[in-house]
């Protein structure tokens, strides 16, 4: 995915409701990719667009509107995820598991044995991704799952492009290690 190149100078003034209509599905997808459950992702989207509504006046047009919106979304979802993680720690595991269905790892395919294998792998990868430090997880999600360029990621995270390059490399190395550790635990 590449962010639209439009600048606010060429974009008519948009309201938070217009932006919601354009981006809510994408931001919901981003929230799921960041590891939130379906329910928490909906809450996250709500928080993102309320924040967009509050901050829209402060958008100065130094970047494309979509970049600005993704920046708000990434920051808000990061905070939301921390809040949810704290809350889930406070709750008992059984209570939380009901509301924490992992959408991508709960799919049905035509072949049941493939289902189980694939969903098991999905859970393992997801758990490995969750073990990564936030800064590594974010760049991997934006690069591998959102398909963004280094340039767009650097604009969204407000970090130099060179830093993004090395962060992605380190994140991949770390994720491979986490996956292999989890595979090792399963085999033991």
């Amino acid at each position, binding site marked *: 995915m590449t962010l639209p190149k439009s600048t606010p100078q060429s974009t008519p003034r948009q309201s*938070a*409701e217009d932006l*919601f*209509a354009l981006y*809510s*599905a994408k931001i*919901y*997808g981003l929230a*799921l*990719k960041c590891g939130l459950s*379906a329910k928490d992702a*909906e809450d996250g*989207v*709500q928080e993102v*667009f*309320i924040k967009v*509504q*509050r901050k829209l006046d402060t958008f100065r047009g130094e970047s494309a509107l979509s970049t600005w919106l993704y920046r708000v979304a990434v920051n808000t979802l990061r905070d939301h995820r921390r809040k949810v993680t704290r809350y889930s720690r406070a709750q008992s595991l059984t209570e939380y598991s009901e509301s924490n269905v992992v*959408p*991508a*790892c709960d*799919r049905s395919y035509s072949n049941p044995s493939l289902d189980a294998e*694939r969903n098991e*792998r*999905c859970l393992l*990868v*997801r758990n490995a*991704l969750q073990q990564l430090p936030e800064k590594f997880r974010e760049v*991997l999600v934006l*690069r*591998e*799952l959102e398909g963004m*360029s*280094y340039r767009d990621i650097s604009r969204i995270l407000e970090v130099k492009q060179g830093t993004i*390059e*090395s962060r*992605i*490399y380190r994140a*991949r190395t770390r*994720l*491979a290690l986490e*996956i292999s550790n989890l595979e090792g635990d399963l085999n033991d």
Partner: protein
Amino acid sequence: MINNKQWKLRTSAWFDGECSDIDSAEVRAHLLEDNSARLEVQQWRDLRADLQLLQPEAASGACIERMKNRFQDGLSHEVYAYSKAVRWLNVAAALLLALSIGGWIVVNSKAPGIEVYAQESNQLDQAIHDFLSRPASND
């Protein structure tokens, strides 16, 4: 001379299609020579395939509708909270203004009483003594 770490970063960027044509040619040449670099690229390919398992399905129409309704509720709550805050600010501003005006009146108005004039301190003592020794008036 490019060191090992720089090669790894450059190869990672090449893997993501973020290299110039010249850099890409160099990375490809490097990959032909370096077996461990090739293995690493293969590992990244596997990782990419693994990560694609986390790609969620698109949000359903019902989900979008639910989020839209919640967002609109949230917006009206925001407007209500904002107008409530503005109302409180107005009350606070009115109180502050009233207090300021009241304070200004108190400071600038002369309180009724008796004025005593004296040039020297002994004259002042005398004036106070005279004042205190006056018989109390009935009004």
